[in-house]
Each structure stands twice: as structure tokens, then as C-alpha cells.
């Protein structure tokens, strides 16, 4: 089929763009850590020389820098992030395997919530443009963007856990009660972004000529929105999914800390505060690759929804 061909070619082209980004990510992270003043693997306390040498050999620090780089690159290729520097008995892979499912659950739920609620609010506001409904929802949306989640989280805990006592203040046991507050906190700013984005693009689409044509056809307004306006209005929202993921991951670092959730973000912050270089490098690269990959998928989804891109590749 013609469509699939266009998409495939598009995918191949984009993949060529994604690889250098991944390479750059790994390279920058690697050298950034290596050029750290004093060297990242210099210990604060003076170690006996033989232990120091052992340690260096263990982390291959005795090899020339370029060799270390390619060794690391090779490891990353097979997704091996090496041993943790602080958690002596753990590899970074094991830490990721421990924390990521938790982060993914919270983040995924927040993402779904944000896009469902956000688009609904946005469409409603667009259809009631310049009415009190529009003004008040957009005022709240602006508030949602402006309040940092590390402010929202303590406030929610204060109200729902401390004063009302309805929900636990934190901790994690895979139960719904413990997910509610973190997911809402994480989703809140995203809901606001999606709502504003949806409203803006919906209004723009509703002013376009082809919507006028659809109205001139005598179709009911609901059909006009659903059939003609929804898809083009959702395109910017779909391309926002990439940045949204990055935002959710960043947000999860804070959320997990406040709600005491043993996710990857918690490990990351602990690692950062304890200068656990291998762990920090591993998480940055892991999340970086994840974001790049997700952007790539979103890009394909976008192309698949947009007949222009789908076909322009043919000619």
C-alpha cells in the first residue's frame, strides 16, 4: 500500500536523525563526568594505593580515555550500565529494573489522565470561547502551569492526608490509595498545558476555511467538530506528547521524593546527592534514550495521522 510505504520511508529518515542524537547524548554524558574537576573516581578519603589501583582496574580507569569511551559505548549498545558506584552490590541495571516499573506506573497513569482531562477541558473552552466558562477554565489552567508540583504536593498532603486523613501521605505498596495523590500531582500541570494547547489549536482550526465549508454543508455543529475539527486540532497535542514525557520524567523526580516512592527518580536524586556517577550516568542515558525513542514514535504517529506527510514522501 502507498501509505505504508510513505510511513516506512519517513520512519527510516527519522531513524537516521535519531541515532546521532543518541550518540551525542552518550558522548556528552560520558565526557562530562570524566572532565569533572578532580576526576569523578577520586575518592575523598585517601585510599591505600593497592586498593585505589584495584578500584581503577575494576572500573577500567587505568585505560586511555578513548578506550574507556568505546568500552562504555559498547556496554550501552547492549544496555549494560555497569556497576553502581555507591550501592556496592548492585548494578545500575538492577537499580533501573527495581525503580523504573514504579515510575512508569505513576507516569503512565498521569499521562493518560492529563491527555483525557486536558483535551476535554480544552475543547469545551474552545467551543465556549470568550465566555465565563472559557475565562475561568483558562485561568485555572494558567494556575496549573504556574504552581510548581513541589508546591502542590505538600499542599495536597496537608489537605488530604494530614487534615482530612482520607489518603496516605506517602509510601508505596502498589495500592490505588497510594497512587492517587502522586498521579494527580504529576498530571496537574500537564492537564493545564494540554488544555491550553487544545483550546488554542481548536480555535485556530474552527476558523479555517474547511470548517466553513463543513458548516455550509448544513452539518450539525457536533458533526463538524467531531468529524472535521477534532483530528487537525489534536495534531499539536500529539506532538506535545514527546515534551510531555520529558516533563513527566522530570516531575517524577520531585514527586517520588515528596511521596517517598521508590521509583527511578528517587534513585537518581540519591545518586546525584551521593555522587554515584555510574548511576547518574545510567539514569540520564536511560531516560534520554527513552525520550528520544518516544519522540520518534510520536513523530511516526503524527505522520500517520497527517495525510500530507504520508503522501509527500512519495513524490
Amino acid at each position, binding site marked *: 500500500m502507498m501509505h505504508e510505504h510513505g510511513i516506512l520511508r519517513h520512519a527510516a529518515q527519522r531513524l537516521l536523525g535519531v541515532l546521532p542524537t543518541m550518540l551525542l547524548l552518550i558522548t556528552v554524558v560520558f565526557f562530562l563526568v570524566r572532565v569533572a574537576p578532580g576526576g569523578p573516581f577520586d575518592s575523598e578519603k585517601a585510599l591505600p594505593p593497592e586498593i585505589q589501583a584495584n578500584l581503577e582496574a575494576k572500573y577500567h580507569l587505568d585505560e586511555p580515555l578513548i578506550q574507556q569511551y568505546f568500552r562504555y559505548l559498547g556496554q550501552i549498545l547492549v544496555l549494560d550500565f555497569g556497576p553502581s558506584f555507591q550501592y556496592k552490590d548492585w548494578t545500575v541495571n538492577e537499580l533501573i529494573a527495581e525503580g523504573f516499573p514504579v515510575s512508569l506506573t505513576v507516569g503512565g497513569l498521569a499521562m493518560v489522565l492529563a491527555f483525557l482531562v486536558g483535551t476535554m477541558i480544552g475543547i469545551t473552552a474552545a467551543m465556549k470561547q470568550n465566555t465565563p466558562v472559557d475565562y475561568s477554565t483558562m485561568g485555572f489552567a494558567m494556575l496549573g502551569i504556574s504552581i510548581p508540583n513541589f508546591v502542590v504536593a505538600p499542599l495536597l498532603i496537608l489537605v488530604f492526608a494530614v487534615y482530612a486523613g482520607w489518603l496516605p501521605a506517602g509510601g508505596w505498596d502498589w495500592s490505588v490509595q497510594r497512587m492517587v495523590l502522586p498521579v494527580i500531582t504529576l498530571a496537574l500541570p500537564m492537564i493545564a498545558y494540554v488544555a491550553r494547547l487544545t483550546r488554542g489549536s481548536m480555535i485556530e482550526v474552527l476558523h479555517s476555511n474547511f470548517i466553513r465549508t463543513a458548516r455550509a454543508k448544513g452539518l450539525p455543529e457536533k458533526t463538524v467538530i467531531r468529524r472535521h475539527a477534532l483530528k487537525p486540532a489534536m495534531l499539536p497535542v500529539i506532538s506535545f506528547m514527546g515534551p510531555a514525557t520529558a516533563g513527566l520524567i522530570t516531575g517524577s523526580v520531585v514527586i517520588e521524593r515528596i511521596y517517598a516512592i521508590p521509583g527511578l527518580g528517587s534513585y537518581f536524586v540519591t545518586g546525584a546527592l551521593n555522587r554515584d556517577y555510574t548511576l547518574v550516568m545510567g539514569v540520564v542515558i536511560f531516560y534520554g534514550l527513552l525520550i528520544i525513542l518516544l519522540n520518534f514514535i510520536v513523530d511516526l504517529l503524527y505522520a500517520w495521522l497527517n495525510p500530507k506527510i504520508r503522501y*509527500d514522501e512519495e513524490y
Partner: protein
Amino acid sequence: MNLLDVKNLTVSFDTPDGQVHAVSGIDFTLEEGDALAIVGESGSGKTQTVMALMGLLAENGTASGNAWFRGEDLMAMDAQELNRHRGTDIAMIFQDPMTSLNPYLNIEKQMTEVLMHHQDLSHREATEHAIEMLRAVRIPDPEQRIRQYPHEFSGGMRQRVMVAMGLLCEPDILIADEPTTALDVTVQAQISQLMAELRRQSRTAIVLITHDLGVVAGLCDRVLVMYAGEVVEYGTVEQIYYSPQHPYTQGLLDSVPRLDDVEDQSLHAIPGNPPNLLSLPKGCSFRSRCSKAFDACREKPALTELEGGQLARCHLVNRS
């Protein structure tokens, strides 16, 4: 009973700079199978006139007056009532075929939805009918092309699709807003020709909006000339072409390049710009651009009926 009877139609827009009077009280009628051209420069209010009839004004626009369609007043209808007529009794073709079709839906979906909504046809019947219509507007290979998306058609082909879409429900009135303006010259001729042909084959009345009197001759019977939101002249095509009474109409005619007149190869543009619709001048609105203006033009001229039913809004008519 006239098919369409427009009485004292006005359209104004609220803008940050004040009220813009786009159309200030125009009347016209349309019989079945009629073809009326509404002619004027951009900003003369011709497009807003038909947008008001179709209920498609921008949000800051308001219209008043009456537009009796088969005895029902379109201007008094809400969107729901209007939807019983839009697309089925009265259809519209827009100026820019590049943006007037939905780029995200294929032609089939955009055409069949009209039939399925207004005439309760099944999807298959609607598709067959749509293919027929595409064939009628001479789109080659309609069975294949109906599944394509708008951007896969050239500008002229897209306008053909628009025409076919407009005619799907065999409307009583087809309004065409500058249907050829955005197209290449050769394609323009093809589309005009197509519309003339379709007109001969059906009982559909046509309202053609254009700034180009050259397009009008082959297609229309009667011409309404608008300037600054008012009718300045009205008559049959013959009357307008051979004895234009208003200096503005004369100016418009002079600005059409004529291939038959070897003597006069020069083109005449009307000097100056249309007046500011925020604050229309007192007296004749064309006065500042008119080479024949005289004292009486300080007073607003009335629309005067002349011999043969021709109308003109000019003091010169009374003087001669």
C-alpha cells in the same frame, strides 16, 4: 413567489476600532434557474452579503434584514433550522479551493457526508452518487480519485470537486464566491465554462460573486454592482455592459482587458481606494474617486429606476 427575496440586508462587524459597516441595506431577488452576478472590489461587501445569507459570518459580525427563501426567512433562523437548507437547498463554493477542502479527510468522506446527512442515503448509494457527480464535473477516473486526499489534486481539480460537492443535493441555489480567483488563467476559463454548462443542464439558480466583470458575461443574466456596502447599479448583462450608468461600473468595465478592441490597448484602473467602512463619508461614497463628481454628489444619491428595469445610484442619471 420569488425563490429568494432579500430585503434591506445589513451586515456590520464589531472591531477594536469601532463598527465596520460591511453591507448597509441591500435588496435583490432571485428566480428559479436565475444567474445573478454580484460584482465589486474587495471590501465592497459582496462576500459578506452571501455569508450572512448562509449564516457563516465571523463571530464578531451581525446581520439584520430579511432573506425570504421560498417564503421562509433565513435571517430569522437559528443554526439548526438553517442546517435544513444549507448544503441541500442552498450550497456554496468558496474562493480558495486549496484550503476549503478538509486536508485530513479523503474526497469520498467529504462528499458522501452531505448525501448521507441530508438525503439519508446509504454509504454505498452516496458513494455512487458522488462518483457520478465527479464524472459530471469531468474529473477523470473518479472511482479511483474519490479515495484521494485534497492535496493530491491540482487547484483546478479541487475547485471541480468543490463544484461537484455543491451540486450533490441538486440545490435550488448555488452560491459561488470568487470561484476562479485563486486559479490560473487557463483553469479559470475551464471552471467558468463548466459552471455555464452545469447551469444549462439544471434548474439551479446561481449567485456568482466576483470582482472581475470579464467572468460574468458568459455565465450570468443579471448583474448587481456593489460599492462600499451598497448597490450602486443593477441591470441585465446587456444593460451593464453596453450602457453602464454609474461611473464606478464604467470604471470596472474599463479595467477589464479587451481583446476585441484593437484601438484601445490601455488598461484603466480606478484611482484611489474604497472608503473606510468605519466612517463612511457623507453624500455619494464614490465621490472622492469619481472623475464626474459635481456639487450634487454631496447629497447621497438614491437608487433610481431607469428604462428597462435598470437601477443606478448616481446623480448623473437625473441630470441627463
